[in-house]
Structure formats: structure tokens, C-alpha cells
């Protein structure tokens, strides 16, 4: 949006405001003028009517003579100039008292026919009335002009103060787009209104975007860092084979190494993507009602042979049927990774036991092993991406298993926990909100 558009929007609002304001003021002015003009004319007519009544009485009592005297006396005493004309039967003017021209157009007149057929006419100049209205109109013009000015200025002020927060929002968005600095936030106004709400929502959106961007940066950093090792091995294997004298067996060996390393790169890439998707909230979860004991059964089935081959006893137990709303594959993967670790770090003759059940509102899956355990100083860091404890370095793995478990479980609204004693073994716990299996499908 250019500042020109922004200005024209404010101007448009101000003009609308001013137009409505002026129209309102003009309506009031016109009404006042009309009412004033009407009541002035009314007053003149009342004066004429009362004069006519008065002259009729004088004429009845004293005849034409008395009337003439009264009219002449009136001319001296009355401040307002009154035109009087008495017309006899022969249409001749019997009494005429006219301070000026008897001009019907400039006079407000009234006529009364007396009992003997004589007509009394009284006229009153409307000049002073017109003069008053003329000044009224001039005043109205001045007022209208100042109203227009006030309306324009007021409209401008009102729109500017109303649009101010929107402009600040717009400027902030513009800056963020221009600089890519998603850390910026729009200040929220003091008033609890729709604009403040919009600003807050906008800031929440920025938070989410920033989280995603940070997550993506983190994932990219990890990928570029951690793919270098297998890629170096891959390149090395190929280069060594090429540099050595031709030997079919050596070539086959080198190519197999290359495929292995490429697969490792792929698994690492997928796992890193999964972790950052889960952490940033972008992982699509196909939630369904999942029985924890089914998950345990599947994992036991998957690892029975592995444990047996290693001489590790794998047992499972479940109390009440416990259900969670989860992405089945993701949850199975998390549980499998836990058991995988437990079997890996437990020596022959040891035991890995899996327990699932319900504790209050939580569904719990617990994997306990009698393995090497984790030193206390390493415990808080084992969930970190690519952290590998000193003891686990010799075992094959990517160091991503636990952080994937944590990310997936937290994406489901759950928590992970660990307790360990070096030399005695470890217990890993996954907790998820339990869901009633029956009667409440809405929680699914």
C-alpha cells in the first residue's frame, strides 16, 4: 500500500464526515430560516388584524371622522409605519394615510368590509422584515462557511486518530516485509476496542510465524551440520575405491557402503524434518482413538526377536484399558524408539519391561530397563537434538530418537520424563491426556 492510497483513504473518510456534518448544519439553518420567516409574517398579519379590529370599532362609534383622527394620531405615535385606506361605496378613497407609495407587492395588507359597505384596508411595510431576513441569510452563509471549515478539520482529525493504529499496524507489517525481522511487534493501544484486538491477533500471528521461521532455521542448521558426516563417509568411500587399482570386489564393497550412507542421510533428513515439524506445530496429526495396550503389543511384537537375540527379557503389562487420542503411527514410532533404546543399552541377562495404564486423567506408558543408566549430569540434555552421552557413542544411532519422542509426545499435548541410576537402569515415561473410550466420542 502506498502512502498516496493511505492519504486518499483518510481524505475520503474526512470528506464523507464533513459532507454529512455540513448537510446536517444546513438542514438546521434552512429550518430555522423558514420558521423565523413564517413567524415574522405571522406577527405582521396579527398586527394588521388587530389594527383592522380597532379601526372598525372607531368607525362604528365616531364614523369616518373619528377614524380619520385616529389614523392621523396613529401616524404620529406609532413607531411603525402603517398604511391605512378607507374605501367608500363608489370605490373612492375616503381616508388615505400612506407614508410612502401604496405598493401592494411591498406591503402586507388586510381588508375588512364594514356593516355599511365601507372597506378598511390596513397595510404594513414588509421592508424591515425582509431586511431582518436578509441579515439572517448573510449570517447563515457565514455560519455555513465556518461549519464547512470546522467539519473538514474535524473530519481530518477524527479519521487520523481512528486510522492511527491501523497505520501503525500497516507500517509495522511493511517494515517486517521489507527487513524480514519477524521479531518486531506492533504496540497495542490503551483502549479495549476492535483495533486493539486486531493488533493483538496480529502479534500472535507474528509469534507463530517467528516460531516457524526459527524452527526452520534450526532444522536447516542441524541438517547442514549433521549431513556432513555421512556425506563425508559416502564421498570418502567412493573416492577411495576410484583411487585404488581396479578390483570388482572392492568396488562392490564401496558401492554398498555408499548405499548404506545414503540411506542413513535419508533417515536423518526424515527424522530432522519430523522433529522440526512436531516442534513448530506443523506436523499433521491424524488423530484417532488408540488403545495404549495395542501400542505396547505392537512394539513388543516388533522387538521380541531383537531382545531374544540379545538375551534381554522383554515383558509387558497393562492395567485398565487406556485410550488416547493420537496419531497411531507417530505414537507407535515414539514407543518403539523408547523400547529400541532400552534394548540397545541393556546387556545380556537384563530386563526391559513396558507398562501401560491410567493414572488419574493421564494415560501413561513406561519403559523400565536394567541397563547402563544415564549419569545425573547428562539427564537434562538427553532430549536435545543430536546429544549423545559418552556411554552411548559406541552404539549405532543418530542421537535423534529421544528428541523425536519428545517432540511427537508434546505435539500430542503430552509430556516425557526420565529417571535413571547409572549401573542400575533407567525408566522413561510418556504421559498423554487419557480419553474415555465409550460414551464421549467428541473427545476423539
Amino acid at each position, binding site marked *: 500500500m502506498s502512502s498516496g492510497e493511505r492519504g486518499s483513504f483518510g481524505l475520503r473518510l474526512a470528506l464523507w464526515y464533513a459532507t454529512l456534518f455540513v448537510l446536517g448544519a444546513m438542514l438546521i439553518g434552512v429550518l430555522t430560516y423558514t420558521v423565523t420567516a413564517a413567524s415574522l409574517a405571522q406577527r405582521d398579519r396579527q398586527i394588521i388584524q388587530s389594527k383592522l379590529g380597532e379601526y372598525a370599532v372607531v368607525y362604528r362609534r365616531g364614523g369616518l371622522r373619528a377614524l380619520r383622527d385616529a389614523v392621523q394620531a396613529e401616524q404620529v405615535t406609532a413607531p411603525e409605519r402603517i398604511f391605512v385606506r378607507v374605501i367608500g361605496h363608489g370605490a373612492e378613497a375616503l381616508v388615505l394615510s400612506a407614508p410612502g407609495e401604496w405598493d401592494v407587492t411591498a406591503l402586507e395588507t388586510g381588508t375588512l368590509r364594514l356593516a355599511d359597505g365601507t372597506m378598511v384596508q390596513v397595510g404594513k411595510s414588509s421592508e424591515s422584515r425582509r431586511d431582518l431576513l436578509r441579515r439572517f441569510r448573510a449570517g447563515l452563509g457565514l455560519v455555513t462557511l465556518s461549519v464547512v471549515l470546522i467539519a473538514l478539520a474535524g473530519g481530518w482529525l477524527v479519521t487520523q486518530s481512528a486510522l492511527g493504529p491501523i497505520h501503525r499496524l500497516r507500517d509495522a507489517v511493511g517494515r517486517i516485509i521489507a527487513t524480514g525481522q519477524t521479531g518486531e511487534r506492533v504496540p497495542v493501544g490503551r483502549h479495549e476496542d476492535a483495533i486493539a484486538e486486531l493488533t493483538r491477533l496480529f502479534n500472535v500471528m507474528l509469534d507463530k510465524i517467528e516460531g516457524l521461521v526459527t524452527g526452520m532455521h534450526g532444522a536447516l542448521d542441524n541438517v547442514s551440520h549433521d549431513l556432513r558426516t555421512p556425506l563425508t563417509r559416502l564421498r570418502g568411500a567412493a573416492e577411495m575405491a576410484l583411487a585404488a587399482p581396479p578390483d570388482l570386489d572392492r568396488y562392490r564393497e564401496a558401492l*554398498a557402503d555408499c548405499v548404506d550412507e545414503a540411506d542413513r542421510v535419508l533417515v536423518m533428513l526424515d527424522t530432522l524434518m519430523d522433529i522440526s515439524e512436531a516442534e513448530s506445530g506443523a506436523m499433521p496429526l491424524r488423530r484417532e482413538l488408540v488403545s495404549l495396550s495395542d501400542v505396547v503389543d505392537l512394539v513388543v511384537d516388533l522387538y521380541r526377536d531383537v531382545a531374544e537375540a540379545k538375551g534381554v527379557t522383554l515383558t509387558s503389562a497393562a492395567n485398565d484399558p487406556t485410550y488416547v487420542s493420537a496419531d497411531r503411527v507417530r505414537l507407535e514410532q515414539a514407543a518403539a524408539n523408547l523400547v529400541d533404546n532400552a534394548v540397545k543399552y541393556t546387556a545380556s541377562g537384563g530386563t526391559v519391561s513396558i507398562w501401560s495404564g491410567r493414572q488419574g486423567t493421564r494415560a501413561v506408558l513406561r519403559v523400565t530397563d536394567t541397563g547402563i543408566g544415564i549419569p545425573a549430569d547428562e539427564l537434562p540434555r538427553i532430549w536435545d537434538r543430536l546429544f549423545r552421552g559418552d556411554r552411548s557413542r559406541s552404539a549405532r544411532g543418530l542421537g535423534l530418537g529421544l528428541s523425536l519422542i519428545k517432540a511427537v509426545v508434546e505435539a500430542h499435548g503430552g509430556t516425557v520424563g526420565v529417571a535413571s541410576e547409572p549401573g542400575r537402569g533407567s525408566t522413561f515415561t510418556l504421559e498423554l491426556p487419557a480419553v474415555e473410550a465409550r460414551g464421549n466420542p467428541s473427545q476423539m
Partner: protein
Amino acid sequence: MRVLLVEDDAAIAEFVSRGLREAGFAVDHCGDGRQGLEEALTTPYDVAIVDLMLPGLDGLALIDGMRRRGRDTPVLILSAKRAVDDRVRGLQAGGDDYLTKPFAFAELLARVQALVRRASRSPEPTTLSVADLSLDLLTRRVTRGETVIELRPREFALLEYLMRNAGRVVSKTMILSHVWEQSFDPQTNVVDVLVSRLRDRIDRPFDRKLLRTVRGVGYVLG
């Protein structure tokens, strides 16, 4: 069997074409979506392998164009996108199977053959046999020569899968998804462990070894 391959990356097209020809397929290759659609409409193919990101016309539109004009050639979609949604979209557009890049050629071959089998609906055999090893699908009896071999259910499932694909390399991923119906990859190779158990039963007591490991690729029976 004639296969149409629509893939714009020359190197991938090259190794897929070569592999399919070695497996006995006739392969036509197009590097462009529009041209691919034209080929698919004018030539009766047994299977089409279609990449999603193509110049000219994208893979989904190509499949849609085929289906609209009544071509029901089975389609295997190749894609570099691994999200479940993309897979669903591909299958909704009329694809029959979906393979994510990078893929093992063994897996691509197995899927192409499965599509051909599905289309031709060859009758289901009741007994599978490789050399002197035979497996009865109805009685679930496994014998090698005169010797009866006892197998656990997973071992039986693995052997059945290997025998159905006798002579072809199957990857660990393929075994995981067919024997455990798992779509994720456990860290420890549970497939290795199961294969070595199976080997103990069907190969160790006998002179001729049938189950071979192809390093870096997978396993092959026969």
C-alpha cells in the same frame, strides 16, 4: 510388458529405464508432462510411472487427463514430497501407488510388478516353491526336501513374502511394511534379526544356501 516413464530428471530416468529393461520391460521415456499424456493416450501401456513435478503439465494433471479420457492404465507416482497429504492427493487423482524419492530400485520394480499383477489378475497359487523349498499357503506347512520346517508366524510371513518375490531383491523397508505392516523405520534393524532367524531354520541345516544378503540393497531368495 510395456512401461511409460514420465520423468524429467535424465539421470533418474536413465537408471529406472535400464533397471526395468533388465527386468524384461519395454520402456518408453518422456521428459515432459504434455508429451507424456499424449503417449499415454495413444499407446496401450501396461503401467505408467509418473513423476509429480514435470515441465509442461504436472503429474497430477497428467493422471487426471488419462482418467478423464478413459485410460485405466495403472499409474505409479514418483514424488520428492513425503507428506501424507501429497500421497493422499496423488491417489485421489487416480494414481494406483506412490513412491517417495529417493527410492530403492528394488522397491520400484516390486511395485511395478504388483501393479501389473493386479491388472492382469493372475490366479492365486496355493503353493509357493523355490528350489527344494516349498510353502503351502493353505496348510501353512513349510518343507525343504523331505524335512518339515517349523516357523513362527513372523518367520512364515517373511518367507512367504520372499518366496512371492523369489529371484528379486527385496529391501528392508519393503519387508517392514509387508511383514509388520509398519510405515516407520525402527532404529535397530529388526529385519536383520528376523532374517537371521529365518536363515537358521531354512538354510543352516542344508548345504545349498537359498537366502542371500545383497549388501546395501536387501535380501533375495533363490
